[in-house]
């Protein structure tokens, strides 16, 4: 029984990171995904901000779920999310003004990230506090991972650097398109292609294995 419980926790965490990854599988939160991933640092900052908002909101929503009347639950969730977003916005502006300037309007727009509201409605409001936090941690890590994957690919090709550190020397020819908006769409599309390909291959292998075992 204890063992089963632990597996549950692990499953809830890992589903957000991989199986139900908010970006690569659910295709949620595309707006920040495309807009601010032109460098790894920006992607991490955006991912970190979203991480904080999602985990904190999930915790609060799950703790307060029996107090919130269902007729006004969406408005309450939005108030909770918006509070955390505003707090994050001011904190970032005070602590890391340069990154805050780069991210611009996209920090306030975390409120509109459907992934966050979706987790409150679909998970946090109907599960225990512990599971809600685990789920939020998994989803937020998955989102952070996806942002970082996109941001690092774009920065490496677009600037020849990662975290601002040049990787290829002074003669690298930057792929300008990668730091422009079309580069975001292209990279996201190619990453989706890659992840689907990996998944398909895995499924096919699993099917073949099952077949081999059956016969």
């Amino acid at each position: 029984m204890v063992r089963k419980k632990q597996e549950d926790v692990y499953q809830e965490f890992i589903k957000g990171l991989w199986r139900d990854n908010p970006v690569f599988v659910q295709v949620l939160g595309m707006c920040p995904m495309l807009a601010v991933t032109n460098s790894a640092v920006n992607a991490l900052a955006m991912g970190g901000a979203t991480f904080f908002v999602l985990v904190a909101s999930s915790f609060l929503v799950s703790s307060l779920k029996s107090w919130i009347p269902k007729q006004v639950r969406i408005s309450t969730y939005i108030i909770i999310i918006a509070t955390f977003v505003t707090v994050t916005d001011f904190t970032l502006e005070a602590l890391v003004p340069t990154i805050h300037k780069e991210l611009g309007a996209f920090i306030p727009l975390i409120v509109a990230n459907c992934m966050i509201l979706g987790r409150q409605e679909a998970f946090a409001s109907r599960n225990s506090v512990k599971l809600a936090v685990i789920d939020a941690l998994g989803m937020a890590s998955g989102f952070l991972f996806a942002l970082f994957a996109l941001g690092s690919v774009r920065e490496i090709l677009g600037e020849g650097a990662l975290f601002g550190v040049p990787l290829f020397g002074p003669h690298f020819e930057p792929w300008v398109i990668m730091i422009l908006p079309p580069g975001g769409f292209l990279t996201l599309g190619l990453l989706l292609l890659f992840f689907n390909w990996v998944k398909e291959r895995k499924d096919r292998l699993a099917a073949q294995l099952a077949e081999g075992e059956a016969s």
Partner: protein
Amino acid sequence: MSTEDPRLLLQAAPLLKQQLTTRGAMLDVLLALLPATLAGLWFFGLSGLLVLTASILGSIMTEWFFTPEEARRQHLLDGSGFLTGLLLGLTLPPSLPLWMAFIGGAVSIGLGKLIWGGLGQNLFNPALVGRAFLLATFPNAMTTWSPAGGPADFFQLHASNLALPFMHVEYDGVSAATPLGLMKFEYQDTSLSNLLIGNISGCIGETSGLLLLLGGAYMLWRRVIDWRIPASILLSVAALTTVFYLVGPDRYPGPLFSILAGSLLIGAFYMATDPVSSPITPRGAWIFGIGIGLLVVLIRIFGGFPEGVMYAILLMNAATPLIDRYTQPRVFGRGGAGR
């Protein structure tokens, strides 16, 4: 059709007079491109040859890599990958690093064709997709032009051609603005005879107006392209630039210059006419061509770039399904649109 000169030929409709295969059509286009290609090699030498080779290799290798094994032979032999690579190469500047040309060819086929489902499924002209990608990705290299030379300098290779993959070398001092660039930024005219012959700077295959027209005429004669598309493009460009020219002859180029300079001819005859990405109805072809002509003139005169043929064709490619939908011929015997 295997019998030679049959006395009596019995067969069901459609009664085709000649075999129209993908391969045959591609061969005709290749043949039509031959003079302009040779001119490009004459003017831009070994550099031109290497850039063409790199972009063709990029196309063919991508086609090979992403095609299932059983279909490879057929897909590679229909020549469409080769043609895409060649068309792309002809619209690249001769001093482009070879690795960029290779990537352009790969993008043309990968993102321009295969990702849509292969030949016949793509919305945009693959070669232009590759070129648009290159222009957005390497704007510096894609707008560095070298002056046209002659056969004597055939082996004078540009140092920038041989840049290592992902690297660039400092561009050597010999750069030259294209006729359109000269016109737009320095109000400097280029003589029409040079534009016809092609000893000007520009993309490898776009400079010689006369030979492009020759190839176009060949394709029209063989009926591999729809004559309405180049006709409507050239006419609308001529009409619109005449208006501008009459308003301000010192600021705007004349109609002949506008038609001969830049990539309008190669675009109008070889790219806009791509049967996959252009409308199939005659009325649609006119709308398509006029749209391209208008966009070309607007981009050239009011836009930031000196040349706009590529974007004009891509934009009208995007409108093609819509045009086709609204220009369906009326079904005989019915009122209104036959749906």
